[in-house]
């Protein structure tokens, strides 16, 4: 099989699918031209992510990565969500094929983009370096 059982589980039964009305932070990354877009919605109370939802256009690993990432940050402080790495998502999924690793990068970036949106909306100061894009896609340009 191309994918691990974990990936197939999160793909066929994705957790936290949907949107949040008046979300405290929304992050969208990716490009339809490249074939994947991830959008993450955060509900934040007292610095804690109390709810998270996602919608994803993409392949099996993109959907599974989104699902896993939302599960990993739900109930966690925002500061901890910022520490989520694509590597951690891949490990939690029991691995992804090499040419699918960018899906986990998108998941990490979608979470960060949503947190950045939350910071921006609430005038919370942050170090822009924290949000430097690591995902370099010559296609999306």
């Amino acid at each position, binding site marked *: 099989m191309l994918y691990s059982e974990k990936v197939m589980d999160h793909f066929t039964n994705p957790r936290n*699918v949907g949107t949040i009305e008046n979300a405290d932070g929304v992050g969208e990354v990716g490009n339809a031209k490249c074939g994947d877009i991830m959008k993450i919605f955060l509900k934040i109370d007292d610095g804690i992510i109390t709810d998270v939802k*996602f*919608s994803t256009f993409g*392949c099996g690993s993109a*959907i599974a990565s989104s699902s896993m990432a939302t599960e990993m940050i739900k109930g966690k402080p925002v500061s901890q969500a910022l520490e989520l790495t694509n590597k951690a998502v891949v490990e939690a999924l029991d691995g992804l094929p090499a040419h*699918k690793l960018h899906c986990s990068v998108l998941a990490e970036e979608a979470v960060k983009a949503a947190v950045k949106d939350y910071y921006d909306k609430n005038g919370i100061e942050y170090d822009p370096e924290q949000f430097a894009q690591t995902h370099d896609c010559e296609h999306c340009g």
Partner: protein
Amino acid sequence: MKTIYVDNAATTKMSKAAISAMMPYLEENYGNPSSLHTVGQLAQEALVKARMEVAGCLGADVKEIYFTSGGSESDNQALLTAAELGERKGKKHIISQKTEHHAILHALNKLEKRGFEITLLDVDGDGLVTAEQVKNAIREDTVMVTIMTANNEIGTIMPIKEIAAVCKEKGVLFHTDAVQAVGHIPVDVKELGCDMLSLSAHKFHGPKGVGALYVRKGLFPSTLIEGGAQERGRRAGTENIAGICAMAAAMKEAVEKLPENAEKLAKMRDRLIEGLGEISHSVLNGSRTQRLPGNVNMCFEGIEGESILLLLDAKGICASSGSACTSGSLDPSHVLLAIGRPHEVAHGSLRLSLCEENTPEDMEFIIKSVKEVVDYLRKMSPVWQDLQEGKRKYVIQ
């Protein structure tokens, strides 16, 4: 769970006839046709008989059939043959078109590096090129035109007879990759008027790893593989006797049953096109009329092809897609891009390629399943949400 295999353009299940034809040459008659003893000569006889059958199916002479390892090898050998002839004559221009199989396109890239100039003709929205386009592209230094008989992704059938006539008139060699056509639509080399034609056994219920190249009399194929004098010195290596016999049997059966099977497949194909066409913002890829009897290829806006395949597979349906994720590259199918589908739409393609073992009931199950899967994926797609909210414009109306 019942498996519904609708990926026959990728490969087919071997027919009973092909398996029975193959077995004796794996068990008792394992000889090498080049050996003088009885065991070897039995294999030699089988080879002669298989070549007669294959030639007969194509309307060719036995001396015009060269057995190869399959479609890709045949394509490569055909191009090399034309290239070496061109080099001798100082003609270094080759014409092809954008939706060819990679066996042609990548071999052409290699020839380009060797100093050839390649013209790749554009196709129209249905994936067709015209004889007129070919005629206008032929130059003094054109050595060959190579245009596929039918496309492997979108099933478009090219006007090969007309193109071959133009080439003949201009004195240019014509090769056609008929891998998807042989056994599915009538293919007669004399009637088509081609100089070379490639075919592959596993596309018509024969085994993988065996195919043939037709080369008309008076033209001598260049060698891709050096060694012994097999295939009249044009393709070295001990013949794959079991595979060749199985290919001949499969081909004979496919050609004999062609009218009956094509009618059955076309009916199921039309039902799928009709049923899947009910899905909003979906479009058929390829020509509605000039189309292989078993090919359906559609794009569904707002979703990605690999997800469709995985969910269909979970329902027992084996299909394929031209999305980047399934091609293993960053770009979606070059064929879908060539017929004008934008990247974001080409990512959401689904190909269903039928065979005579499929049933009308299978088609109903496929239509129901694809509808469910498309609906489910659209519900979680931010692209679909944007389309519905008017934040993004529909490409497929």
